[in-house]
């Protein structure tokens, strides 16, 4: 008898069909991986089980949880189930906790609600649970507020809330997507252990095949509100009988073809080529928060004396976890942040000096592509104006010339010149990232800084964008500084890699060498923690 049996679940929100004939079953103690790209309906399937669907949702079919028909249960019955028999962990730990309540209150709240325990009993149980999720109360008192914890620690608190009452079913919706790889590995380990020791069933929702491969007993693959493929995890991922499953697996391991050999530092140096970007002993620091009226602690050093070169046409990767100084380094190269010391020479121009003219000249050849294809465009401007924005640095160009350049840039990224008249909301996420790349290309730059350019994209779109970046490099000889936390993407696209930790490079070299034979313990930790489909299948 299945613990959770979803039969022919249908969902429409405001007449828009979202889910169609979704059928799933989870046995007690089983881990079911629900895989799919954004918009496939996997999160809404989970919210249907919790019955926390958005306003205007209409469901059909049946969801049976241990004998209770969820779609027909009263709200009071659902409140009794939620948090007690079904726990849920969400994607975004930074916003999943109430900022004005202590973590102790937030864990104890559910315990008190469902068991009627006294304040003191609930606090004691909350403390036990904190201990279990790896936040010993000695170091993390219950009186802490969420803003005093890191993302990984907050996700542990969310897990403590969800598991405090030993639910029979735990739903985890992309629980590690927002976290660094090393933290992701720790959180996945914690979930795996909790599920095993408390024989909970786990519905694990993710877009990452590497993650499910290492976690799930069975897998269901969703697309456009339907389940396309369903079966035991290892055979499903190995044999890839369903064409969509195969496409997903191939896209997630996609490596763009590189015309010409990778450009390696040592070869370039041997040929005595002049680097496009020369960074020497760069130090960037931020003033620390004042502790008293007259006491100011030493400034926080975000970047601590790093040196590297990027050659024309080279793709340099910069990897490291959040807070390691990656973005500060990128901002400094763009001239948005003055370094405290060190030199920064781009194409013969000294950027570090703070010389406005040099920075302006460098910026024409230096562009950036951001992570979020939704947030980086003004929604009220047409594409023509958005893409032409960097051209204000070249007042000598006439209107016709500018239009021509926008058209060429749009065509170079696989859009059409006619798209110039549209607004950003008319494009999909992947197309918007193409727009962002077109905007970077319009000035014909020599170096593009790409800050997690594919992290927010689905695997199939990600593969296309990687192909595009690779193609542009081969055609125009553009160099990239490619910032990413995703090692598989770095390996697919980049020539050399810089591994950054606490403002310093701990390891550097050609990508294959560094990732296949990491010498620094931190690099080893990173490569071991990165979820990898092939490795997980090999171990299975």
């Amino acid at each position, binding site marked *: 008898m299945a613990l959770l049996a979803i039969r022919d679940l249908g969902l429409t929100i405001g007449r828009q069909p979202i889910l169609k004939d979704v059928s799933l079953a989870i046995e007690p103690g089983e881990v079911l991986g629900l895989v799919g790209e954004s918009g496939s309906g996997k999160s809404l399937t989970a919210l249907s089980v*919790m019955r926390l669907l958005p306003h205007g949702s209409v469901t059909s079919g049946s969801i049976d949880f241990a004998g209770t028909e969820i779609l027909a249960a009263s709200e009071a019955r659902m409140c*009794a189930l939620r*948090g007690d028999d079904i726990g849920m962990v*969400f994607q975004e730990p930074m916003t999943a906790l*109430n*900022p*004005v309540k202590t973590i102790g209150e937030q864990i104890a709240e*559910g315990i008190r609600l469902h068991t009627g325990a006294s304040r003191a009993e609930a606090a004691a149980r909350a403390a036990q649970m904190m201990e279990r999720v790896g936040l010993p109360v000695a170091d993390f008192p219950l009186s802490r507020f969420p*803003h005093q914890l890191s993302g990984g620690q907050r996700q542990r608190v969310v897990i403590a809330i969800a598991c405090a009452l030993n639910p029979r079913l735990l739903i985890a919706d992309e629980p590690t997507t927002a976290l660094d790889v090393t933290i992701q590995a720790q959180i996945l380990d914690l979930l795996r252990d909790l599920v095993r020791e408390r024989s909970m069933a786990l519905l694990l929702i993710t877009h990452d095949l590497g993650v499910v491969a290492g976690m799930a007993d069975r897998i269901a693959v969703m697309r456009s509100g339907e389940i396309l493929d369903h079966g035991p995890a290892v055979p499903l991922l190995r044999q890839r009988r369903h064409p969509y499953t195969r496409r997903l697996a191939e896209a997630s391991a996609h490596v763009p073809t590189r015309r010409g050999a990778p450009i390696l530092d040592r070869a370039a140096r041997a040929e005595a080529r002049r680097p496009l970007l020369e960074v020497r002993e760069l130090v960037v620091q931020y003033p620390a928060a004042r502790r008293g009226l007259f006491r100011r602690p030493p400034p926080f050093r975000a970047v601590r004396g790093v040196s590297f070169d990027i050659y024309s046409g080279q793709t340099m990767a910069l990897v490291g976890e959040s807070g390691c100084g990656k973005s500060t380094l990128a901002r400094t190269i763009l001239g948005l942040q003055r370094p405290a010391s060190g030199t920064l020479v781009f194409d013969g121009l000294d950027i570090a000096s703070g010389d406005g003219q040099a920075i302006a000249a460098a910026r024409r050849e230096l562009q950036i592509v951001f992570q979020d294809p939704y947030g980086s465009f003004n929604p009220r401007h047409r594409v023509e104006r958005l893409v032409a924005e960097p051209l204000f640095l070249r007042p000598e160009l006439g209107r016709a010339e500018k239009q021509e350049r926008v058209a060429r840039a749009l065509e170079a990224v696989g859009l059409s010149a006619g798209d110039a008249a549209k607004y950003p909301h008319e494009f999909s996420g992947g197309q918007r990232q193409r727009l962002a790349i077109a905007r970077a290309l319009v000035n014909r730059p020599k170096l593009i800084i790409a800050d997690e350019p594919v992290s927010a994209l689905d695997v199939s779109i990600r593969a296309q964008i990687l192909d595009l970046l690779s193609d542009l490099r081969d055609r125009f000889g553009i160099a990239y500084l490619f910032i990413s936390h995703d090692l598989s993407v770095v390996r697919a696209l980049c020539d050399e890699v810089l591994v950054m930790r606490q403002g310093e490079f701990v390891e550097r070299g050609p990508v294959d060498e560094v990732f296949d034979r990491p010498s620094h313990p931190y690099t080893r930790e990173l490569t071991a923690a990165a979820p990898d489909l092939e490795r997980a299948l090999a171990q299975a």
Partner: protein
Amino acid sequence: MTRYALNRLLVGLATLLVASVIVFSVMEILPGDPARLMLGINATEDAVVALRQQMGLDQPVVLRYLHWIGGMVVGDLGRSYTYSVPVLELVAERAAVSLPLAILSLLLLTVVAIPVGIFAAARRGSAADAATMAVSQIGVAIPNFWFALLLVYLFAVWLRLVPAGGFPGWSAGPWPGLKALLLPAVALALPQAAILSRVTRSAMIDVLGEDYIRTARAKGLPRAQVLWRHALRNALIPVLTILGLQFAYLIAGTIIIENVFYLPGLGRLIFQAITQRDLIVVESVVMLLVASVIIVNLIVDLSYAIVDPRLRAA
């Protein structure tokens, strides 16, 4: 927390100081001789000189400012020219009307606006929400003196529940006084409540869309508990900000409302003082009103830190 509080207190004091300089300077740069202005065009030269001396106008500006501000600190506000009594006495007597009026309307404002805003947010998109917001739209648009006249007509003239105006004094016990202040407080508070309820509603709707609300629901908390325990406190920050600003409007509103209801309060005092060119009284009362607004905003700043732990560290 203590540092935050101390910081806000210092900022408040600095604001007060700047405000006092501005108030003093405005009186200073008014064209013409204040003494002549106060006495009118038919005054004799002797009378003007005497008044100039009494007001200290023969002394240098900086000295006069220091004298004025120093007097204010020890409670000496000078002597009213028209009433011939110490300004402090005058102000104390009038504040006994205005302060209860301001507090009553502030209370009314919060008690009406916040629950209405929460109610509308909880039933977002429903007919009840639409109706509440339509009424509040009217409330925003109505000028408070006209609303006051309407209230007088309905409750005083027609239903004869409360007096139409005037103030019996507190000596007759609290109830007659309170009764006289009721309509003015309603007239002051309701238009502001319309604004605040809209702010509360939109703040609540924003908060109800947050991830942690979903987390709370996933714990099994019923909707109502989520509303009170998780949403309200987070929505309070913008509500408190607007409330602090509205207090200034209430204060300014008393000048009109006290005239409509014929209440002997500070608003009426300042109005009369201006028409009678009693600059000493104007200066002091304006400064008093400024101080009360600054104090209320200080309280708002401190309550931010109580509501939001993230501000305590700052």
